[in-house]
Structures are given as structure tokens and as C-alpha cells.
């Protein structure tokens, strides 16, 4: 009885010591995965995923609290990159690519209040006080922040029209 107790205690203590030392040696500062995930995310801190900024979203992803399809501005490209990094499978068939949108200024009702370009996370809106603002299309991520602050509803997200350059073949329809 005593032999059993002592031997198990000693064994447990020894293994605990070894693991304790190992925990010191192989200590992980924060979660290195989070940093890698932040690098993939768009970084516009738009908050459309429901997390506070891209760092929060990366944290949630690393802990498995969020699906890889969480980022609407990132779309399928980001979802695929995240899935590759996390080694998870992503069912893109279920992820309808949102219609690509872009903010557009209706020039007749823009009063040049400058509120929209103050909130734009990517500096995609140019203009000055009392001047009509306009959107730099290559920089707009369609986060919708400008839409919220516009007092005249002049700036709105509009679907980007398909052009000859952006047109592509659809996936062949399959017979069941």
C-alpha cells in the first residue's frame, strides 16, 4: 500500500517536473497563428464580421470560434487562403459570393460635408469641404461605413457592373 502510494507519487511528481520544464522551454508567446491570420485578412478593420477589427477576427479564427468565411470584403479569395492556413475544409458552394459592391456618390445631392472620407478606412474617398466627393474605385472595400454617416444618403453601395474585362465563364451546370 505504502509502496504503491510512494511510487505513484514519485512518478507523478517526476513527470510533472519534466512537463513543467518543457513548458518553460517550449513556451509560446501569444498565438503565432493569430499573427499569420492577421496577415491574410484585409486589415481595413471594417467590423463586418462582427469582431472588433481584423485582429479580433484573427483571434477568433485561431481559436476556432469563427468560420473561415467570416470576411465579407475578403470574399472567396480570403476564405480560401484562411482555409489553407488553418487546414480546414471550406464549402464555397454554400458561400454565395456577395455581389461585388462599391461606394458611389450621387453628385446631385452630395453637400460636401467631408463626413464620409473621415470614416473611410482605406482613404478611398477624395474631396474637400463644400466640394463634391468621389470614390477611388480601386481602393474601396465596400465596408459601408460612409453610407452610415452620410447625412443626405448621397453615398451608397452600388453593385459593380460586369464589364468585358471582369466577365468570366460560369461553372458548367451538371446533370444530376
Amino acid at each position, binding site marked *: 500500500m505504502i509502496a504503491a502510494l510512494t511510487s505513484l507519487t514519485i512518478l507523478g511528481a517526476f513527470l510533472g517536473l519534466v512537463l513543467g520544464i518543457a513548458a518553460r522551454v517550449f513556451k509560446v508567446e501569444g498565438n503565432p497563428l493569430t499573427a499569420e491570420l492577421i496577415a491574410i485578412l484585409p486589415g481595413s478593420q471594417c467590423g463586418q464580421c462582427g469582431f472588433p477589427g481584423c485582429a479580433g477576427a484573427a483571434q477568433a479564427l485561431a481559436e476556432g470560434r469563427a468560420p473561415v468565411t467570416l470576411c465579407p470584403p475578403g470574399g472567396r*479569395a480570403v476564405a480560401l487562403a484562411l482555409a489553407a492556413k488553418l487546414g480546414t475544409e471550406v464549402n464555397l458552394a454554400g458561400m454565395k459570393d456577395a455581389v461585388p459592391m462599391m461606394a458611389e456618390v450621387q453628385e446631385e445631392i452630395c453637400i460636401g460635408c467631408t463626413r464620409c472620407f473621415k470614416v473611410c478606412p482605406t482613404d478611398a474617398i477624395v474631396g474637400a469641404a463644400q466640394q463634391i466627393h468621389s470614390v477611388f474605385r480601386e481602393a474601396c472595400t465596400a465596408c459601408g461605413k460612409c453610407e452610415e454617416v452620410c447625412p443626405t444618403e448621397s453615398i451608397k453601395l452600388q453593385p459593380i457592373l460586369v464589364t*468585358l474585362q471582369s466577365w468570366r*465563364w460560369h461553372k*458548367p451546370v451538371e446533370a444530376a
Partner: protein
Amino acid sequence: MNLFDLRGGIHPEGRKNLSAAHPICALPVPKRLFIPLQQHIGAPAQPVVAVGQNVLKGQLLATAQGALSSAIHAPTSGVITGLGDCTAPHPSGLAVPSITLDSDGESRWIALIATADPFQLTPEEISQRVAAAGIVGLGGATFPSALKLNLSHGVQTLIMNGGECEPYLTCDDRIMQERAAQIMQGIQLIAHAVAAQEVLVGIEDNKPEAIAAMQAAAKNTSVKVTAMPSMYPMGSEKQIIQVLTGKEIPAGGRPADIGVLVHNVATAFAVQQAIVEGKPLISRIVTVSGGAIKVPCNLEVLVGTPMQELIDFAGGYVQPAARLVLGGPMMGQQISNPAVPVVKGTSGVLALTTAEIGQAEPAPCIRCSSCVRACPVGLLPLEMAAHIRTANLSGAVNLGLKDCIACGSCSYVCPAHIPLVHFFNYAKGDLTAQERTKLKQESTKKLAEERSERIARIERARAEAAAKRKAAREAKERAAAAKLTTEAV
């Protein structure tokens, strides 16, 4: 000359006899032309004319924009009646910005600068004139020719492509038979411009008259005219290089990487016209054919002529056309609207009957591997399509999707009628879109980071300024307090 082996390839029924015997005849100038500003790979041209302006035949309508672009000239004399959109010669049927020109029926040329001895020109002058004439690859890829000349200077071998392996098409066949001398001069000019050491002309052996005509024209020159076995896709750049030189372009590379430049024979004719006679590229030879066409023929057509005019000139339909195609039946563009204009890259206008297109419902793949044998690039079409079907694009890329030339050989031979090449076109489009999104994301991410940095900097500066003000105020108050105490004392 000994030829090298090719892998894969198919032997579709040629059906060239429909139009092969018809000499080139000029289509009368149509009343109204729709001239798209994008008839080439790259950026659309920038118009330099205004609505209502009178233009002469050959006058510049739009200039090239950027390095990868091409100029566009007036196909005939007349008045500009519109700068707007017209239906693009493209399967999407989307609009393309274009110039509308109403012809005055007089075809008055602008003053042309002819060159008596073109071989005195320097290579730079030749490529400048080729660029100014708006010449693009007439085989169908429509890559700006001048850029190709500049990128290929000093290549060892110049290959002139007279393959014309697509069924039905006979435009290159006819132009080689009827205009061999001009083509030969154009070939020599191109060879002169890139200082090529060896010039080969490859023609499929189903065009014996064209081979004879070109061989006669090549007498007393260093140009070698070679008959190649008839096979699809012999007219593809990679395949013609392989069969004539035995060299293979590395994956993702260009012909210049292995010291080869390939041009179409019709492009050589356009180059000759531009350099010797000063005429810009405003017309091309188009084959009008297909089972639904009454009199299949080869027409010299002004760029911008609506497709319907060609069909009407060929006598219209003898039976309903099930499908209209611009280009060849294998790689051409399916068109739904016959009002679309002929552009620089249009080699054929085909009206095919239901029997000719032979459409059938796709059946399951039985892994017969016919497509693997047919693939001229040595890929596994069935595996690639399976990966694409299950949304595994990276798997398809690993199998060599990016090396696919979309020749359609696999779809042609598939006994189960699986639209293999459609899968590959879809996947390539999807990959391009993903890459574009990724690039955009990288740039917007940088913008977002710069912005947050800037805001932090401004905050910091503001805080520092506030601290400074506070310190100053406190110092002042202290001084005032000190003064008070001294006064009190």
C-alpha cells in the same frame, strides 16, 4: 526538312472544301460601321475624333493607350455619327465602347506615305510603323504586333504560321494563294526587324495550292516553306514551334524564351501593306461558311462591318442556323446577336446547323482517357475537370491548369460529351478573379495601415501640443503665483 513529333491532337473533319475554292472577293462598303475601341489584348484605344467629324479612309480614329494597346483607323471615308457602346463580338454579349462611322461611299484614302526601299528602314522604324498602323496578331490572339517585335529582337528563328488548323476556315489558305508575293515581302520585313537568323513557314499539308504558291514566292530567298501534317491544333503557337523546331516552351514562358517568334501569315501581309504602301490595318480576310450558309466564301471585309452584312452577301441562310460563331468552330466565340461587328481578330463567320454542332447531354465520365490522349499539352483533362467540379481549383492548378491552351481537343473527343474546356475556362476566369481580389486586398490593406498610422501620428502630435500648452500655462500660473506671494511679502 525533318519535322518533330507532337503529342496529342485530333483530326476533326476539315469541311474546308465549302469555301476553299472561292477566291477572295471584297465586300461592298457597308452604310454604317461599328468600330470597337478594343480589338486587341490590352487597354482600349483612346478616341481622337469627335461626333460629326468627317474622316478619310485610313485616318487615325483612336490612339493606343499604354504599352499594351493598339491604334484604330477609319476603315472607310465618312462621318463619325457616334461614340458609344455596341455589342461586343464576345460570348457574353456585353457592350464595348465603340465608334460609329457612316460611310459616304467614296472610300477616299488619306494621303499615304509609300516606301520605295523598305529594307533601308531600321528595326525600330519598322516596329514604330507597325504600331502606328494598328497591326495586331491576325491569327486570333490579337496581341499588338509591334510589341511582339520589340520583345523578340534577336531571336534565332522566325516562324510564320500558315497552319490554319481550325475546320471551315480558309482565309489564310486563300491569302497565301493569292497574295504570296506580298506576304513573302512582309515576312522578310519582319525577319529584318527582329534580325532573325532562320525563317520557317509552316503550312498544313491539306493546302497544297497555298504551299506551291508560297514556295514559288520563296524562291531566291532564305525563307523555308514547309508542309506540316494536318492536325488540330497545329496552328497553335506552342504546337507549331514544337513541330518545326522540336523545342518546347517552358510552362508559363513565351516563345522568345527559347529564341522563337511566331507570326501569322495574314499579319505578314498587313505588315507589308503598312510598311510598303503606308496603309493601316483596316480590313481583313474573313471566311463565311457553315452548313447554314448558302454560298460559303472568303471576303475581304472592313473592320467594323456588322456580321449580318457578310451573311447577307453570302446569300443568307439555306437552313436555320443553330449557332453563330466568330472564328473557328473549336476556339471561336459563340455569338447570339448577328449585329456584332467584324474586328481585327475575326477569322471566320460561321453559321452552323444543328447537325453540325451535334450537341448532346453530358454523361458521367468513364475514365476512358480519350482526352488524355488528345491533349496536345500532355495534361489530364478528366482529372482537372473532376477537381474543378468539386471546387478544388488549387488541385487543378497543380495538375497544370495554367498550361491549358483551351484548344478544345478534349471536349471534342469526349465520348460522354463532358464540357471539359468549359470547366477550364471557368476555372481560369475564377483564378484570375481571385488573383485580382487578392491584389486589391493587398493594396487596400496597405492604405488602411497607412491611415491608422497617420491617425496615430496626428493624435500624438495633438497630445504633445496639448501637453506643451498645459506646461506653458502652468509655468505662467506659477510665475503669477510667485509674483503674488512676493507682492504680498
